[in-house]
């Protein structure tokens, strides 16, 4: 009976304290994940080895150049960024077995059998004056071309899009459609900084 009137603890200030902490965390932390385009840089060449590595057949290479005015040259023809993806896709698939487009090699792929793998390499050259935005736009188109080809390959092999595949299947598809983008040594032509 005597317990009836136990005074409750005044907890109204805990909310304030919690708010204070909340505000602190809101201020000092960052949300959201970092997104971007992943790349692997080629290792720095040894002076002695230099001559050896550059024996890539001419037909297997497409040179994509961006100049200081952000204009684009793919292979031999100037073009817009929007056209680049299709050009790269044709280059990498070589549907008509054109002798001027990259050769395809029969490659034994583990867990899949023998498939034709293109030997095409995309070489990306830029000027010191190229804007970063244009460079990323081109990189993005190149990645998009490869991603679409991977999607097509995984649809054909597994009946699913590339993203839906499990890790093993993804690595198999990556072998079927390799992403070979080489970033060439920098050149300085246009003197715009």
């Amino acid at each position, binding site marked *: 009976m005597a317990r009836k009137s136990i005074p409750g603890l005044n907890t109204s200030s805990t909310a304030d304290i919690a708010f204070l902490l909340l505000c602190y965390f809101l201020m000092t*932390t960052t*949300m959201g994940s970092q997104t971007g*385009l992943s790349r692997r840089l080629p290792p720095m060449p040894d002076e002695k080895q230099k001559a050896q590595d550059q024996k890539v057949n001419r037909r297997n290479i497409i040179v994509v150049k961006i100049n200081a005015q952000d204009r684009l040259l793919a292979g031999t023809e100037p073009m817009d960024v929007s056209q680049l993806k299709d050009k790269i896709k044709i280059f990498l698939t070589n549907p008509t077995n054109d002798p001027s487009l990259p050769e395809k090699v029969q490659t034994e792929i583990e867990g899949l059998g023998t498939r034709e793998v293109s030997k095409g390499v995309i070489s990306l050259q830029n000027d010191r004056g190229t804007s970063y935005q244009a460079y990323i736009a081109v990189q993005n188109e190149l990645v998009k071309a490869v991603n679409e080809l991977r999607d097509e390959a995984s649809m054909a092999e597994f009946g699913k899009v590339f993203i839906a595949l499990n890790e093993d299947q993804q690595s198999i598809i990556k072998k079927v459609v390799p992403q070979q983008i080489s970033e060439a040594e*920098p050149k300085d032509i246009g003197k715009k900084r």
Partner: protein
Amino acid sequence: MSMFKKDGKKEVPGIGTSSDIVFMLLFFFMVTTQMRDTEDKVMVKVPSASEAVKLERKDLASYINVGTPIRSLQAQYGTETRIQLNDSFKTTKDIRDFVAAERESMSEADRAFMTVCIKADENTRMGIVTDIKQELRRCSALKIMYSARKAE
């Protein structure tokens, strides 16, 4: 609560649960966010790219910010594009030390997976980015990521 019950029917809603709610919010933010370790000294508006992918291991990434200094620092440093490493302006020559220090702070097993995230402003000229890339190649930090917003 007993003091509110004095006048019978009228019940003022207690605020006891609001602290719980706020604590819940607090925990949510504590779990989903991470500490901002550097203060931005350059203005960076990263370009957008539709094929941008998530950075897999955030703890293995080190950041190189490239852009023009923020407004309040322009009087001191000018409006030329600068490189920011950790909390100060640096030149390309300092990247070597920066990469070495970042490597040192990682565990032995993780060092091979270290990613250098280049956060460059979209109006940056490629010259400075190329210099950074060359320097990174020289200190064999070959895994890089061009920071970009996900479009669409």
